[in-house]
């Protein structure tokens, strides 16, 4: 499944010794992590384990502390601005959907093409032929992506008027508009019903195969995780406690303990506030 020999050597994404400290709280502690080319890997862990925080470091929203490093396709991106990292090919969705609510689905997707488009003030104002072509292509690509995620019909709806599931789909389409190498999905099935979750497994495979990206997902739905992931990494209280295939992780005593230990408060429908970069 994961064999893709095109790029030899560098993994799609490599994170070394990532730490994040909030005041006294070590939210992520020296976590290293690799996403191989064209793979689907998962990051799991109880609530508050530090998964979203880890994503925020990868995407440049939080700085990597204590000498942590992030490399994207072999290129060091540590310390780069979020938009720079995004344009180099690291796209994400948000656990708490963060669409541009008052823009249409199509506009949302086109925003993410910003770094691939060239039009400046002058070209836009005179609407030069090359600028028109660029806009047309952007428009076509946006529609293609919207169709790909299954919401082609809603292209001109405002994002806020989409159904919850469609908003999640739109987030994926928007992320794909960056033409990323690696796609990070933060709890993409949250709020989906079991049927939608089941479909999601196929969807992730399609994304990987047709869009040629590696996918890293944070997921709470174990049935999804076990079926979709080639490798699983488990975080608990900021520490990486296990890593391996679905079977290896499932039987790992530390994982079982982490989940059972927090089972009481792990109905996973609690309020999450780990999304934020600004403080």
């Amino acid at each position, binding site marked *: 499944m994961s064999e893709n020999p095109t790029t030899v050597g560098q993994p799609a994404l490599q994170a070394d010794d990532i730490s994040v400290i909030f005041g006294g709280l070590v939210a992520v502690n020296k976590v290293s992590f690799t996403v191989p080319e064209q793979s689907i890997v998962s990051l799991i862990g109880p609530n508050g384990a530090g998964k979203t925080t880890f994503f925020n470091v990868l*995407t440049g*929203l939080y700085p990597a502390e204590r000498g942590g490093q992030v490399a994207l396709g072999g290129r060091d991106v540590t310390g780069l*601005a*979020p*938009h*720079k990292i*995004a*344009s180099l090919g690291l*796209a*994400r969705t*948000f*656990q*708490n*959907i*963060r*669409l*541009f*609510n*008052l*823009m*249409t689905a199509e*506009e949302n997707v*086109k*925003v*993410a093409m*910003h*770094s691939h*488009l060239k*039009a400046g*003030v002058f070209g*836009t*104002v005179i*609407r030069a032929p090359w*600028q028109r072509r660029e*806009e*047309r292509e952007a428009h076509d690509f946006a529609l293609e992506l919207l169709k790909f995620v299954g919401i082609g019909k809603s292209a*001109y*709806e*405002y994002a*806020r*008027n989409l*159904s*919850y599931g469609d*908003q999640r789909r739109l987030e994926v389409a*928007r*992320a794909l*508009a*960056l033409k990323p190498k690696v796609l990070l999905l933060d709890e993409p099935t*949250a*709020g989906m019903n079991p049927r939608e979750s089941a479909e999601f497994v196929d969807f992730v495979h399609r994304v990987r195969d047709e869009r040629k990206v590696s996918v890293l997902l944070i997921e709470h739905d174990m049935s999804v995780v076990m079926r979709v992931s080639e490798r699983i990494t488990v975080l608990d209280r900021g520490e990486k406690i296990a890593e391996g295939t679905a079977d290896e992780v499932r039987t790992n005593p530390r994982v079982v303990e982490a989940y059972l230990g927090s089972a009481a408060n792990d109905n996973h*429908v*609690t*309020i*999450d*506030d780990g*999304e*934020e*970069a*600004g*403080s």
Partner: protein
Amino acid sequence: MSQPTIAVPTPKRPQGVDRTQLRWPLGFTVAAVVVVVFYGFILPFLVPGVRGWVQDWLPISEINVALIWAMSALGLNIVVGYAGLLDLGYVAFWALGGYTTAWLMSDFGFGGKVNFNIFGSPGAASTTGIHLNLVLVFLAAAGVCALFGVIIGAPTLRLRSDYLALVTLGFGEIIPQIFRNGDEDGLGFNLTNATLGIGPIDSMTFVRINRGDVVVGKLNVFDHVGRFILFSLLTALIIFVSLRLRQGRLGRAWLAIREDELAASAMGVPLMRAKLAAYAVGAIAGGIGGVAYALHLGRMLPDPFTFAVSITLLAMVVLGGMGNVWGVLLGALMISWFNSTGLPQIGDSFNSAFGTNVNFPSFNFLIFGGVLVLMMLFRREGLLPESRTRLVLHEGEAGDTQAEEPEQELVDETTVKSGDVK
């Protein structure tokens, strides 16, 4: 999300032929031609009673002033309405544009030390000063304002919007102060002639309409109709640029920043560059407004550039309908007319009818503030809002607290949203 999904018409396909883009230049031209014909060719020959009434209630000079306000308000709209950056010192760009005109189009020449003429039109007796062609003056003012927009923006646009508002406020105070004190006593050399100001500003070769006759000649301070032609062209240009930008890559980026800055940056939008672009484009429009103002006055004085100008411009944007050029245009024309003509005239009529002696214009800001409060209570989206803004505010009435505060701080927003999402 738990918010009620209110039936909203699906927005039209934004791509391809945009009908509004074809229609408005026509409407605008017709309106401008009507004004020119009326004030240039019909008004002078009307019976004195009617003429007097028009000159009292809708003088062309005040229409010109309204257009100057409109140009600047449209520029501010790019900063505030499009990109969502609060600017409280926009008057600085007016002052910069105005003084650039005064420097480059008068006998002043920094105390008469400089003297040259590039396609300009110095007065017959002129022996000093820089005399540039008006087109060059516009380019220079645009350049100066864009430069200052970037200089002030670069260090401050990283700040959160409330700090940004304070810094721009300071900028709006400093620049006019420099102009006010810009002579030997204040600055050490004569930059702006301080409170005496610079003037007169050169007249320019232009189509001129005099009592129904069209002549090509020198346009001086009193040729209101000629200047109206120029000002309406400039206003149309700024509208055109606003609309075009809004629909392109930059406009989308601005709107995305206004909606969710963090998500925008995670989608590859360079926040600083996009904000700087908004700031620079807005500054240029303000500068053009400043040039027009200088042409209108015929000389440049530091006094008009007060904080009240910045606030009035902001009110024009908000009252008119943030983000929508037509709303802002309407807001600017209405408020400007009301301030310059409507209120004094109403006051005069009132006083003569009731034999009172109330100074109505002095209640200007009281009325203004009252209207603002009422608008914010009953029609927060402005007179002619952008369709998307209307969407949010009306859902707000449906009891959706999340939608009611679109400009919340990031942190709050997340907590609110996460309650919804998870």
